[in-house]
């Protein structure tokens, strides 16, 4: 495993990968607005009346003890499960009832807590498949054959290679994804999400299981992406990471948001310390 690195040789070129479309739309409202969100499992209220807004081009963290409902919020926002109450607005449009794949097409993209790659595909195929509305997948594309989608396919391949290179994984491109290490899988998953040109990225504990060096490199990746206009909602246990990259932090406990603000300030607050023993 020569390339245990995510930033790769010379971590700078992440900036070359233009991911988000055109940066934050000036004067536009919040990119995501969640109001009174609730989700029950049987009799358990996993999420109980959560409201928040995300501004374009920001990184927002969700922290809280185990079982606070953090992952459930993320899962409901992504559309993987539907809420029992509340509304979700994405880019000013009500998406509460839209299925997950429609939200993903709008630019609301998630990664999974345990990185999920398509194990039977190679690393680069994992990236190339992440363009759901490519011409080759339409009836027209099937009938028209290669000539119809060739140029688009070439562009997808180029973008995938550019990402692979900046993440320092070019030598793993044709490796079967099922054989990659944990850190490499996570990298593939994040690159795959970036292939979709997301506007809002939902990431669930991306640093879990990564060594400190990789963690710092991934932080750099997220910061660079934010500069390019991408918004990120991140669940993270590692509070130092949260402090370094998040502009705003939501603290959750018992299915509710019990505090919000900047990490440095939150550390001093009594109610946060009570709910969540801060190191």
């Amino acid at each position, binding site marked *: 495993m020569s390339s245990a690195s995510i930033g790769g040789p010379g971590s700078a070129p992440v900036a070359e990968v233009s991911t988000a479309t055109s940066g934050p739309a000036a004067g536009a409202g919040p990119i995501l607005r969640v109001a009174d969100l609730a989700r029950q499992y049987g009799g358990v209220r996993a999420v109980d009346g959560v409201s928040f807004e995300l501004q374009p081009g920001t990184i927002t963290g969700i922290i809280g003890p185990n079982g606070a409902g953090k992952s459930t919020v993320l899962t409901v926002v992504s559309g*993987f499960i539907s809420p029992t109450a509340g509304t979700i607005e994405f880019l000013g449009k009500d998406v509460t009832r839209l299925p997950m794949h429609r939200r993903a097409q709008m630019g609301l993209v998630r990664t999974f807590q345990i990185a999920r790659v*398509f194990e*039977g*595909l190679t690393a680069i195929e994992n990236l*190339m498949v992440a363009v759901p509305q490519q011409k080759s997948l339409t009836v027209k594309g099937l009938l028209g054959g290669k000539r119809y989608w060739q140029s688009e396919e070439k562009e997808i391949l*180029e973008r995938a290679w550019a990402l692979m*290179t900046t993440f320092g994984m070019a030598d793993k*491109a044709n490796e079967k994804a099922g054989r990659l290490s944990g850190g490499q899988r996570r990298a593939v998953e994040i690159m795959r999400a970036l292939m979709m040109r997301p506007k809002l990225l939902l990431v669930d504990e991306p640093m879990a299981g990564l060594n400190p060096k990789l963690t710092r490199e991934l932080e750099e990746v997220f910061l660079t992406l934010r500069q390019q206009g991408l918004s990120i909602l991140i669940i993270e246990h590692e509070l130092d990471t949260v402090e370094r990259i998040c502009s705003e932090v939501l603290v959750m406990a018992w299915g509710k948001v019990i505090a919000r603000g900047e990490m440095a300030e939150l550390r001093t607050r009594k109610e946060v310390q009570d709910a969540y023993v801060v190191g």
Partner: protein
Amino acid sequence: MSGVANLAYIVVIAAGAYTYGILTLGPDTGNGGFQQYVLGYRLPFFLAVIAAAVVGAVVGVLIGVTGLKRIRQDYQAMVMLVISIMAATVIGAAPSFLGGEPGLSLIPNPFANLSPATGDWAYVAMVAFACVIGYLVMRRFTSGPMGRALRAMRDDEHAAAAMGFSVIKMRLLTQAVGGAFGGVSGALLVAFIGGWSPGAWAYVETLALLTAVIVGGMGNDFGVSLGTFVIAVLLLQGVQFLPQIRSHTGLTEAIGWMTLGLMTIAFLWLRPQGVFRERRPRYGQPAVGNAAGGEVAEGHS
């Protein structure tokens, strides 16, 4: 093809065969009323084959709908088996619909006006032609971006949906295409053998299809084609040339099926990927400007 365990595929083939039969046989009063069935058109060969493809696709989608519910793989497989057994039972029990248990017979052969020998060869040529067309159509789905998307969906449906794929739509699409193939193959089969009844598609026939796929290697077109050929020619026909063993009639057939079953188990045990592995396309680095380093990652294993 889409990772859905389709143990009811034989139903699709049967649907194609029946469609072809009732569309070419002519009215059931025409031949002395010894068999009964619905419709009774005398359509030309190609129209009937196309109709068989359409019916096959529809039946394929209907079967696919039952597979949409997220239940365990093996449970789903069981449902499919039950569907295939039941379809045969229901049609066998309704004599006036599709000929019931005795089935349909005297289905016209498109080359009936040639001499038997020439007719047979013409038929072989036509089937070979159909296979080539089928293989080319199949390549459209299994190679390139479409194949990539289908394999991704097979590996992890949830992740595929998280990436914006409509899993339901793609599943039903593959079911429809698979169904159309089954329909055509049923039509070609029945046009050649001239008769069709529930006994011709008992669930053991499903095993033959499965063996072909498993031996050839799931996910490799060439492997599956070869597997089908080997199974069909060597096992099911080949046993007829074994020296007849005197004791009783069913023995040679029994040996054929037993070999088939043992072969499936042996392959699943010893070489589950089949003779030919699934091919994974390799992508070289495109030769465009800004790619830093320019190192080409080809030639790894």
